[in-house]
């Protein structure tokens, strides 16, 4: 029998993978994809809670999260394209002009 704990643990694993990816990788696009993975993990726990608590709010929140993620992906990728046009790289170690 699959309980809510199974889904929450899977969601935790995927979220942790996203966090580790953000910390380990240097490529801005892959960091961005890891953020998408974290959003997906949170969506999964939303839907799991909605199902096991007989509620609909979780699914509606996932709907709104997906919209925000789509907007975020569009703007974020535009920023990456703009940065690449100026610096010829997407390695975040080289994009340190705002460090000080």
């Amino acid at each position, binding site marked *: 029998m*699959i309980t809510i704990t199974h889904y929450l643990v899977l969601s*935790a694993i995927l*979220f942790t*993978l996203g966090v580790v990816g953000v910390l380990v990788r240097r490529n801005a*696009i*892959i960091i961005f994809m890891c953020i998408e*993975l974290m959003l*997906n993990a949170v969506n999964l726990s939303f839907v799991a809670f909605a199902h096991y608590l007989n*509620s609909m709010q979780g699914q509606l929140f996932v709907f709104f999260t997906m919209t925000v993620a789509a907007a975020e992906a569009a703007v974020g990728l535009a920023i990456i394209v703009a940065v690449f046009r100026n610096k010829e790289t997407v390695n975040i170690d080289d994009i340190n002009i705002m460090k000080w």
Partner: protein
Amino acid sequence: MEAYLFYIVATIAVITGVYLIFERNPVFSALFLIQTMVCIAVLYILLEAQFIAAVQIIVYAGAIMVLFLFVIMLLNLNIKEESKNALPFQRIPAVVMGIVLFAAICMIIKSKLLQGKHGEYTTAYVNSVGNTKLIGNLLFTDYLLPFEITSILLFVAAIGAIMLAKRKL
């Protein structure tokens, strides 16, 4: 049956998630992320959220990831570029802290703090009306204002993306 399906799909999702992190080629990373998202869509169907599963495939795996692939191919990234890592000592602490984070989340899950009031949308009721119809009803009644704000957000995001990516206005 349901349990077997859950374990198979969850295993595939975790494996592809690991490959997403440690794959050197960004194109393969994006394809692995698409695989993870399809697995999560299967889990949504197991959780009887059919509309969300369809939206997950169409919007995430279809639209957002194709945008990612377009940008990766547009920039024509050099795979070797990432080898010059300015913080080589960051990797092991990152993995260790990731494990600590996972343990912390598991402790919260185990602590039985995550409880809530049961709602009225039981499986039988949702199946008699239809998942999509219920979501549509709620979106255009209780959640009308967030829905409208979402449209403004998407509009602003489209304008912002064009402004940022255009060479000169």
